[in-house]
């Protein structure tokens, strides 16, 4: 038997990412960062290797696949407090922010992180630093610079491109730089001068991005908040839709049954990004509870209250209609800090998704959307040994995911608050 490090985990309750409900009394054997076997302890002998680490998980805990966040911005700080201008201008500071953000997410149980937009070469620098062993980070899937129209959403960090040929060229540039997928801004967003209810690209422009991505075996992911944007993304064959709000041209939210039906029938996945909006509402509610709001804040509170209620309702309807929803925080943006994907999952439950579905949306379904389900997202032989242990049963209450006891990344134990390890010498 090879002399690598073997880890054996015995757990009473396992969510394997395949079946929604928890399974009981399983043994997982890990070697060289890969799950080698999983099954009843009676049927799996301890490997005959000199150093076998045995993790005995207590019955009160749950073992599950490492979580996948399909949507983050690692270089942004998610605190709502702008960095000092000199720091904001310094790519080095943004890179250090990305390292810190990635680490925070990892220790909170997120073992795969999608970076959906960072300026310059920062995302690629981070990937390179991980490869060189300078940084410990979750598995990274990066877009590099998002493709956006001239002056479009996130142009300050984006690759501005216009027209199908311009977009094709921009996509090729991103692929050359090392992008794992193509991110394109199909509508406006939070960037001043852009509006979430206005599409920013024509269908043929979106199609150019999709074609370029697909021809190179990559996904095309769109930021899209307007219903008309959804129609165009569906036409163009976008693989993942971020936000998926149903903004009409008059800026009102109105669920569009027909577009929702088309989404459900298409291969497209939707990442609803609830808490990046809910968090801002929550901050206003907290403020209102302790002090008097200004007139502008009071108006904003009213606006956000109505809009967030509408958003939750729409997400609930998408879930009911069978649209493939995946978990993604948008962490880094606005007031969404890293290390808290759980709140997003709780919000998905508030919208009507069963806790078991929310867990799948952050594990196997997310992996399927990203086409990495042959590596991560479930616990099965041949999969990466990315897994977490939490106190409690997240299939009943996803909030249990806050009680992280251990995080294993590629077989390496990167967090262990439970004191689970015992070394056995059975040679």
């Amino acid at each position, binding site marked *: 038997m090879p002399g690598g490090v073997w880890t054996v985990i015995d757990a009473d309750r396992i969510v394997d990412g395949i079946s929604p409900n928890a399974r009981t009394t399983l043994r997982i054997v890990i070697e060289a960062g890969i799950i080698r076997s999983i099954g009843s302890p009676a049927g799996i002998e301890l490997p005959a290797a000199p150093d076998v680490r045995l993790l005995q998980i207590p019955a009160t805990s749950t073992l599950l696949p490492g979580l996948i966040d399909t949507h983050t911005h690692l270089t942004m700080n998610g605190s709502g407090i702008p960095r000092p201008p000199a*720091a904001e201008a*310094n*790519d*080095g500071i943004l890179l*250090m922010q990305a390292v810190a953000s990635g680490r925070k997410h990892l220790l909170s149980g997120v073992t795969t992180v999608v970076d959906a937009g960072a300026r310059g070469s920062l995302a690629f*620098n981070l990937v390179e630093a991980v490869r060189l062993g*300078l940084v410990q980070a979750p598995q990274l899937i990066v877009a590099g610079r998002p493709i956006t129209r001239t002056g479009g959403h996130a142009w300050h960090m984006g690759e501005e491109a216009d027209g199908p040929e311009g977009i094709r060229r921009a996509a090729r540039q991103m692929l050359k730089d090392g992008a794992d997928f193509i991110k394109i801004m199909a509508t406006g967003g939070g960037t001043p001068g852009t509006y979430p209810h206005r599409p920013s690209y024509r269908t043929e422009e979106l199609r150019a991005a999709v074609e370029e991505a697909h021809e190179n075996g990559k996904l095309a992911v769109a930021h899209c908040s307007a219903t008309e944007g959804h129609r165009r993304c569906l036409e163009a064959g976008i693989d993942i839709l971020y936000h998926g709000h149903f903004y009409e041209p008059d800026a009102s939210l109105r669920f569009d049954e027909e577009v929702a039906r088309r989404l459900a029938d298409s291969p497209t996945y939707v990442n609803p990004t609830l808490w990046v909006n809910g968090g801002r509402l929550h901050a206003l509610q907290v403020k209102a509870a302790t002090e008097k709001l200004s007139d502008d804040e009071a108006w904003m509170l009213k606006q956000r209250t109505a809009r967030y209620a509408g958003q939750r309702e729409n997400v609930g309807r998408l879930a009911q209609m069978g649209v493939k929803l995946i978990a993604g925080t948008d962490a880094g943006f606005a007031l969404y800090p890293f290390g808290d994907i759980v709140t997003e999952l709780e919000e998905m439950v508030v919208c009507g998704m069963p806790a078991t579905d929310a867990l799948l949306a952050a594990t196997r379904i997310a992996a399927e959307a990203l086409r990495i389900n042959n590596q991560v997202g479930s616990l099965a032989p041949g999969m990466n040994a990315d897994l977490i242990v939490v106190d409690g049963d997240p299939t009943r209450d996803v909030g249990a995911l806050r009680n992280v006891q251990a995080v294993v990344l590629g077989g390496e134990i990167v967090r*262990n608050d439970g004191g689970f390890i015992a070394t056995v010498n059975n040679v």
Partner: protein
Amino acid sequence: MSSRWTVITADRLVIGTETEPIEPGVIVIQGDEIQAVGKQGETELPAGPSVETIEIGPGKTVQPGLVDVHTHLVMPGDGTPYQTFMQHDDAILLLQAAKNARTHLLSGVTTVTDTGARGGVTFTLREAIKLGLIEGPRLVLCGRPITRTGGHCWFLGAEADGSDEISRTARELLKEGADIIKVMATGGGTAGTYPYRPSLRTDELAAAADEAHANGKKAIAHVSATEGIRRVLDARFDVIFHSHFYEADGKLSFQEDVARRVADAGVQVNPTLYVNGVYVDLLQQKAAHEVLDAQEQAILEARTKRYGGQLENVGKLVERGVKLVAGSDAGWGRYPFGDLVTELQEMVRIGMPAAEAVVAATGRAADALGVGHLVGSLSPGKKADLLVVDGDPTKDIAALRRIDRIMLGGQTVERGC
């Protein structure tokens, strides 16, 4: 100021500026600063609910965090040639620096001096630490080392020639945030430069030292050749790195008169022993397992001889009263971060008492860098940067490999799983 008080009691306190420990001792810390240090029973202690008392177990020592006067944070110290590593862009150098700084901190070095990095990388690292993006040691930075066109470490980006240009370069570095001015006074390990050749004239060196002193900073010289030592003494440098005593013919030859001048001037010397010694060790380790080929055998013999000469020269400097300060040169060559202790062991090997080596790596090192008012010793008004060591490093320097606790500004550094 934070009203949080911490009282630490221990059988032995090593204060960093003197070799005699305080036994049994007590340290009183408020917030990030030391308020009182003394013998137990003779020191007034704060009382009340906001006082945390830490009793250090028997056989252990509390001492100041280590101060390394000489590192290169942007370099890996794993033998990768600089020609290869420097092809990386600043982003990678920054993350290498962040990793190195953290590794050094976790080995007990709470103040890390960078004496040669590229561009603004180390200033960015300090900013990132300040913003709380990474927990790092205190940094004492030169930014970029000043070197002549094509001189040692020219690739780090501060080439300057003539006294005016050198003054201006020093001013630029001070503007960017340099805490010290580092100058390459002779060649070194950079291709096309030679350790036994001076690389700047005395007036050029003086321009750098004067600019440093005019701004309250220390001037530090990389200098291997004896003629270079003469020039940096004339230029009134504060600290000399390497100090090998190379003659113009490339041979090592100790010069009494120059050593006397170093001692009389009170200039501190960082002898950088193990950055050379490591090559002898590596070849000897290889020889223990396999037969060396003729070339390797020749290199081993030459390096052993040269390293023997270097150790002898540094021993003579110590005998003549020259004050040594500890600096690893980590990052360069094959000297990895996290191992200042090996350098200290080599200093003990050439005849320094262990207690002196501790001073050379704490109080005296901090004074040499001009930061002795902040760190390097356990005394009132200093930052509470300290180590709990299992054993007595003043008797056995290797005890510094057994660190139980690292405190940086009164906060215990989490060392992870």
